[in-house]
């Protein structure tokens, strides 16, 4: 075991596992943001383990998850829009989760990029990092829009009116 696998395992147990618990239990207002966090953290775990086991091909799992994770969250936001509108998640908690995602992405991707050194591998890691951060932002924005429908019933939020 080296530092990368230790960090990956720690993130899996202390980050992803609680987030997965949050996805599996409670109301939609907790499950959907937790899903956003869980997919982001799992992608970071894949990156750390790929580096730890010296298998660059495994980075592709993180790349795929960085695209499919936010897409899955958007799907559930759409499907559970009614429940999110009935019980909107707290603004501060949502913001804290998003900022936490950004910090986690930076804390993992930047050291990995430094370890990879200048080159195509580094560009690939940075692209995955940007995709993760953007995906987290988009998913949070969608949750906000769904929740805003609950705050102001009758005044659909931007992007959630379904008239397009």
């Amino acid at each position: 075991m080296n530092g990368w696998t230790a960090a990956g395992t720690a993130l899996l147990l202390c980050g992803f596992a609680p987030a997965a618990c949050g996805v599996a239990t409670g109301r939609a207002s907790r499950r959907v943001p937790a899903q956003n966090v869980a997919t982001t953290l799992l992608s970071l775990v894949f990156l750390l383990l790929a580096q730890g086991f010296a298998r660059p091909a495994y980075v592709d799992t993180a790349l795929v998850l960085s695209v499919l994770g936010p897409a899955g969250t958007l799907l559930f936001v759409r499907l559970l829009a009614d429940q999110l509108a009935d019980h909107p998640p707290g603004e501060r908690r949502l913001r804290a989760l998003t900022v936490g995602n950004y910090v986690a992405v930076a804390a993992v991707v930047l050291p990995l990029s430094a370890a990879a050194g200048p080159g195509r591998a580094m560009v690939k890691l940075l692209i995955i990092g940007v995709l993760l951060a953007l995906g987290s932002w988009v998913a949070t924005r969608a949750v906000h829009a769904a929740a805003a429908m609950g705050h102001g019933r009758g005044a659909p939020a931007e992007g959630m009116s379904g008239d397009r």
Partner: protein
Amino acid sequence: MVRALTAGGELLGWWAALTLLWIVLIGPVDTLEWVVGAGAGLLAAAAARGARRAVGDR
């Protein structure tokens, strides 16, 4: 004429960016990968322009 040039320019831009993305994300870079990447990039460029127009031109 101007419209066709704009459309062609946009497609070319998308194609260049997406082909570059393909080349960065794959493993070994050989001639076959360039050919496949350029083809996939062209398809994706057409889809990207369609998606951009769907969102932008209301």
